[in-house]
């Protein structure tokens, strides 16, 4: 009974899938699906490496500080960093006083309630505060940015397929739209051509536009490429602040496991020696 109904059900599923396959294949041949207009123009992220890459990765703190400077002077006007607190900047090598000064002098203040009146107000930030949001809410953010809300950058290198190289490619990938670009893929009003972006048209205008846009104090030459790389490195840190701890712990754990596994393997071999010996006599 089970087998009888089983075969009936099996014939139905198998048969209908094969029929669907034939119908689909016919459709595919007679009426092949058109590629999306941007298919031929879209580019994969550029090859770029960071000190934090791979299992031996460590942050380059000088670079993170430069990247933070780029974030502060270029990105922070529109992009929030809501999951990061000023106190976390100590991990970039700033001392306590520097962190306090950065927080207190941040471009916008932290919203609070006036202790005297209970009215909404703002105050200078403290190290314990998270980075304040550049816009009061999403509606304000959209209104100020041609209806596109600038995404929060705290996790951006983990929240985009392609990771840090994608962010770097996007920052350095702005260019003139090619002349043969189909009309459907041409940037509309307020959009900017960038072949690294999924549909080629990005609402954000090129943020890092000229060499020396940011004045680096450590002697590094502030080229567009260098600034883009630095701010991307900084955003790798904001997305994964425990990266170094993770790599170090990983090596220690794996070293321990390798030793433990070798010992376990040796005890397995010795426990089974007699039983296996019996097997060998066969040969």
């Amino acid at each position, binding site marked *: 009974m*089970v*087998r009888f109904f*089983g*075969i009936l*059900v*099996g*014939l139905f*599923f*198998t*048969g*209908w*899938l*094969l*029929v*669907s*396959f034939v*119908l*689909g*294949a016919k459709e*595919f041949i007679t009426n092949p*699906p058109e590629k999306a207009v941007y298919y031929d123009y879209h580019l994969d992220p550029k090859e770029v490496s960071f000190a934090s890459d*791979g*299992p031996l990765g460590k942050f380059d703190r000088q670079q993170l500080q430069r990247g933070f400077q780029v974030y502060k002077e270029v990105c922070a006007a529109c992009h929030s960093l809501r*999951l990061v607190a000023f106190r*976390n900047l100590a991990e970039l090598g700033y001392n306590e006083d520097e962190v306090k000064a950065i927080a207190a002098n941040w471009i916008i203040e932290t919203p609070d309630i006036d202790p005297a009146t209970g009215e909404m107000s703002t105050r200078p930030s403290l190290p314990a505060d998270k980075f304040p949001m550049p816009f009061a809410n999403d509606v304000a953010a959209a209104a100020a940015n041609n209806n596109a809300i600038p*995404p929060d950058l*705290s*996790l951006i290198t*983990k*929240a*985009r*397929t392609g*990771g840090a190289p994608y962010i770097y490619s996007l920052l350095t990938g702005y260019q003139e739209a090619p002349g043969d670009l189909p009309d459907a893929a041409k940037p509309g009003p307020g959009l900017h051509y960038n072949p690294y972006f*999924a549909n080629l048209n990005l609402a954000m205008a090129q943020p890092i536009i000229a060499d020396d846009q940011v004045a680096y104090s450590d002697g590094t030459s502030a080229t567009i490429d260098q600034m883009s790389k630095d701010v991307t490195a900084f955003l790798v840190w904001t*997305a994964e*602040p*425990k990266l170094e*701890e*993770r*790599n170090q*712990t*990983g*090596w220690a*754990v*794996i070293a321990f*496991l*390798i030793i*433990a*596994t070798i010992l*376990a*393997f040796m*005890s*397995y071999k010795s*426990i*089974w020696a007699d*039983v296996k010996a*019996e*097997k060998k*006599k*066969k040969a």
Partner: protein
Amino acid sequence: MSFPWAKEYTPTTAFGQWMDEKLPIGRLVYNSLGAGYPTPRNLNYMWNFGSLAGIFLVVQIVTGIILAMHYAANADIAFDSVEHIMRDVNGGWMFRYAHANGASFFFIAIYLHIARGLYYGSYKAPREMLWLLGVVIYLLAMATAFMGYVLPWGQMSFWGAKVITGLFEAIPLVGKPIQELLLGGFAPDNAALNRFFSLHYLLPFVMAGVIIMHIWALHIPGSNNPTGVDVKGKQDTVPFHPFYTAKDGWALGLFLIFFCLMMFFLPNALGHADNYIPANPLSTPAHIVPEWYFWPWYAILRAFTFDFLFIPAKLLGVVAMFSAILVWFFLPWLDTSPVRSGTYRPKMRVAFWILIVATIILFICGGAPAEEPYVMLSQVAGAYYFAYFLIILPLLSRIEKPLPLPNSITEAVTGKPLEKAS
């Protein structure tokens, strides 16, 4: 029950004897995982994945309990509470990455465990109940993993929950009420998140209970083995401890090395980037995919692209997706060949390996966008998947001529006949 030559538990200390009279828990462990459980001597490394799956369930429960101490199941703050774990909780990143990757390694172990059972006929008499309980454990694991992926309340969490609960909508008449009951509303929101969290915490303990029954059911006939031939004498077996505890032990070390390479050096490789974007009901991700361990079933769901008479394609897909797993419940009665092991079934063995290839194709198609050639590939592979269980196995059992079986496990291993004397 056990074999007559199983070693008897003899407590050596006065406390042990006292305990054995009152609550013989030591005896239970001794007879289940100790020297009191005679196990076939010829088990290969495919027999390691049961214990590995069990150990990974424990890893998941331990890390999960710790995560639950810091997680907040509220749609407004769930995402941030996960980031709080990643940034501010001591070692929180380690527990979260262990939990997220541990789920994947649990499924790696359980899939190899199931494949082992399929090849070596571990589902056949007298182990049908053992197999059925295993399918129940797998279904519970799927539900648990699905709900766990919703908890971080990222984009893929939200849209995954919407798509999967949306499947129930395809059921005529009762579909919509079922979907609303599952979600506690019309779309995933706080009510859904809360009940998913509650069930995500509950189901692993239900699984642990079913696993106890699974092991109980195992110990009645004892383990199957690569020859599929019954244990006939003492020489066919070795005591579980120390022989298989040692073998499981070193294999566990090896499995943990792979696990740690993944969780420490590529912790997000098995996840989806979109889940680091907070859930946004107004923005649909470019393509919604479940976690990798659901991809074969997701491919079957999407393989049904044409209505059958009055039955819409979506409903067919949903029914087929659930049937793809439910068919396992009938497997012991679909495959009537008296020979268990695929080693001695020349035709079934070929059909089995094609099934593995078909499942891998379904896996690849399930993770790919719903476009050609993936849909066509999953239609062919899906057709074979159903044909294997429902058509090929029942017919093959009748026409196949199995190879001669060894007289005993001992003979298969040593080439010498089993001495009946012992």
